């Protein structure tokens, strides 16, 4: 079964080659972003379940359980909600 990406309770398709931000944008979900490079923190969100891999070092300050959408990918089902 293909992995899924749940965002704010809504289920979307998950492409493991794209960042989570790109995944949402490809499915017409508007998400806040600025730098798209992991340093501004505009796309900070809460990881409800699942794991992410970072393609670049996430520089923005993250509290426990928070993730940056712009520089993370996932190849397993993942559940995220906005702050």
């Amino acid at each position: 079964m293909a992995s899924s990406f749940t965002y704010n309770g809504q289920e979307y398709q998950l492409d493991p080659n794209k960042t989570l931000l790109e995944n949402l944008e490809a499915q017409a979900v508007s998400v806040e972003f600025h730098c798209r490079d992991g340093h501004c923190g505009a796309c900070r969100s809460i990881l409800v379940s699942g794991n992410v891999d970072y393609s670049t070092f996430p520089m923005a300050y993250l509290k426990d359980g928070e993730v940056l959408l712009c520089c993370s990918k996932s190849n397993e089902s993942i559940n995220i909600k906005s702050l």
Partner: protein
Amino acid sequence: MAYTTFSTLSNDALKEPMFFGNPVNVARYDQQKFEVFEKLIEKQLSFFWRPEEIDVSRDRIDFLNLPDHEQHIFISNLKYQTLLDSIQGRSPNVALLPIVSLPELETWIETWAFSETIHSRSYTHILRNLFTDPNEVFEDIVNNQEIQKRAVDISYYYDELIHAVQFMQLHGLDQTDVEYVNIQGKAEKLTLRDIKKKLYLCICSTNALEAIRFYVSFACSFAFAERDLLEGNAKIIKLIARDEALHLNATQQMLNLWADGKDDPEMAEIALECFAEGREIFLKAAEQEKEWAQYLFKDGSMIGLNEQILSQYVEYIANQRMQAIGYEPPFEVKNNPIPWINHWLVSDNVQVAPQEAEISSYLVGQINSSVDSADLSTFEL
């Protein structure tokens, strides 16, 4: 507690707090207590740019064709940004270097302030191109009431900290022989905790500066460029905005590391104690920026932006930036009133397509393309 440029005390920098521990001795970056500051240095260095790389020569024509009220918006913003970067180009160094205790943080502070000096130099680059004599513009920065109001608030927290630290490093904190007279001329009992509190408030104020004070000007510059006007300027502002996002990251890191108890435990207590005051500093900065928008548009708005939209944007980013340091968002606004601005704030997107505007990166490696037959006179077949 005198400052020393090279402490011979053999200490473990990994065990020092960010500030008010032992002075940094060996500038070593093989290990870091807080890796993020090393990453910030690397990122800031990779962002290096020079104002002269950007051709602003076409901006002069655009500027001269603007109606008076739009010229006022453009020049006032440049004046305000010149003020902000004048302060930021020196203050982190003067205020924070004498008290910092981690090598990676010390170098980050220097890298940060240096990049602000590049911004200051870029304003001169822009203004020199617009005016034969930019003197009048620069002189107005210290006379303009609207700019002055903001300057006082920004420099106050830095000055308070610098003053107290200088006293401590000269006289110690004993205060039996010499009493501390604060910057307002009043006698004050000074403890290390008091100075730490001044540091905390100073970083709160700097964080508000990096978080929102620049963004009214940024929005105006990008709004001009959306109309294909003053594009050279917008390209410079885009590079500045990219740097400012890093600087903001650093102040957010410091505030969060303190509040979460990951650094000096006394700073965690102070963060709790000053929670309300830190919020007030932020709200006051937001209020001043909205007043600035009012001043900018006093004689008329510009296409795509007016006072109301800009004030909403200030509230919108204030919400975001305050959430990032643990406050509830104070304003109602939920959506970005100028969503197009995000495309100007993307970090890896600074190069533009040739058909859109002149590419700045080509100018870096330019060569002299005029070849005279005399240049070939030494060639023989």
